[in-house]
């Protein structure tokens, strides 16, 4: 018995499934015009605009504007991908039954999650390359802690991804789209991502505890002072745990 459809079932090895899922999701994210705008175009505009603007209005910054803003914009890029892009993509995956479909494939849920994280890191890598190139072109002179950058990206991605999934799992796709963009805009303006929390005066003590402030401050510590920011990393880890626990309790696959 050896027809065309003679059964020969089996799951692919986990690492191959995760790789396939990550590259698929990254490709879809980069193919989508709005997502690309969010991932690359807006951070680059913010970077150029902030550097130009800082020369005209007198901001109290500890270093040169480009050295201050480049880490902030890298933090913004992490936030846009791990939170906004992920929430929107996942919201529509639930709507279109993609998650349900994959739920009956050999890909386990942990594999799906690992694939999503892999896709986020791939997109963030691309964002990092583009933004770094633009920043260096504007005269950026960083003092790098490689470990600091890696820990910040991982902790920031974990915190924002868990919050993005929480949002996508709780709301309808359109509501997720609106909320994810709104939260992104609010945090970009007032969340101490691009501007350091010290620039917010007394309010700085509040925004430091937001995931956006912690991500921005931690990224600045790693690229402005070449140092780790234990407090910022701890705040991000805290948000990641809270987000993951709430997501695990509330997320439904449809």
């Amino acid at each position, binding site marked *: 018995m050896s027809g065309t459809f003679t059964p020969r079932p089996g799951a692919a090895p986990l690492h191959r499934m995760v790789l396939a899922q990550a590259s698929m999701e990254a490709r879809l994210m980069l193919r989508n015009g709005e997502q690309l705008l969010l991932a690359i175009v807006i951070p680059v505009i913010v970077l150029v605009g902030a550097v130009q603007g800082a020369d005209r209005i007198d901001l109290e910054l500890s270093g040169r504007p480009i050295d201050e803003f480049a880490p902030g914009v890298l933090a913004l890029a992490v936030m846009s991908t791990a939170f906004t892009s992920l929430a929107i993509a996942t919201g529509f995956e639930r709507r*279109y039954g*993609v998650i349900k479909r994959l739920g009956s494939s050999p890909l386990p849920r942990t594999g799906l999650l690992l694939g999503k994280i892999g896709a986020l890191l791939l997109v963030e890598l691309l964002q990092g390359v583009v933004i770094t190139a633009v920043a260096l072109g504007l005269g950026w002179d960083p003092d790098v802690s490689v470990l600091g950058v890696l820990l910040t990206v991982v902790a920031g991605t974990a915190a924002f991804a868990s919050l993005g999934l929480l949002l996508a799992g709780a709301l309808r796709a359109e509501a997720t789209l609106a909320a994810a963009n709104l939260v992104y805009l609010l945090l970009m303006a007032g969340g101490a991502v691009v501007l350091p929390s010290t620039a917010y005066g007394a309010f700085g003590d509040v925004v430091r505890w937001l995931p956006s402030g912690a991500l921005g401050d931690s990224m600045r510590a790693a690229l402005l002072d070449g140092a780790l920011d234990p407090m910022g990393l701890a705040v991000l880890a805290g948000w990641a745990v809270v987000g993951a626990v709430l997501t695990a309790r509330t997320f439904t696959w449809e």
Partner: protein
Amino acid sequence: MTSYTWPVSDTAPAVVVDGLVMRYGDKVAVDELSLTVGRGSITAVLGPNGAGKTTTLETCEGYRRPQRGTVQVLGLDPVKDRRDLLPRIGVMLQGGGAWSGVRAMEMLRHVAKLHAHPLDVEMLSDRLGLADCGRTPYRRLSGGQQQRVGLAMALVGRPEVVFVDEPTAGMDPQLRRTTWELLEELRGDGVSVVLTTHYMDEAERLADHIHIIDRGRLIASGSPLELTRGGSTATIRLVVTRPFPPGSPESLRAALGEAIVVTQLDDVSLLVTGPADASTLAKVSRWCDENQVLPESLTLGVRNLEDVFLQLTGRELAT
């Protein structure tokens, strides 16, 4: 590398549902349902919309946990043993299941990569007539094309059992025939096919075994022949121009005698089932005359699955 070893002693039925009860709030979707699906056959779960077909299927696919009763697929528990079971089954959802921006072939290749020994995706897309739209984004595919991508995703992993939910809904007659032939080829190659449908002709033409479900309950089971035979049984369908006067089924039954079953289908149509002969037809005609009802049509035919279904649900409605 994961390699699959075929359990030689594996003789478990494809599906065993035993006393399944599923509720959504107050509404009972599946009510004490029990059925068995043998290996290497095509089994149709037939019923109207809302009968509980999809809920039953989704319980077999591990999406829903039985609230009461048990479900086993290939001898495994779809929830507890899902990691062992999922690679061995193929699932075609009633709709959706792909990213809106993904190209048809890209989606199929992706699902293929999740399996150890997938089918050749080019061959599969040719067989399903998807070659022309391989680069088209999923959201731009027609309903029928999306259905076929869904079927391809269910088959690409070379499963032992495939669950297909309304596989030909929205397909034109030619595509339906092609899909039926494909499902028959699957059976020929040893794949067990479980399909839900509300098309009587699909079940009658395709299935080795039919389970008729209505309002969550199994009301009949058997091969198409077993379900439709009954010796010289035939049906007379009477459709009238104005609603029947009250008590018509009873009065007609009294006029026709013991061996006849009269089922009221709606305000203006009755189904008469029993020994088929000209005298019955003549008696029905005379009854119309005596009761001043004007027949719009009076047709005599061999009992088909549709009659079986209407008769069964009609009888249940009366109780």
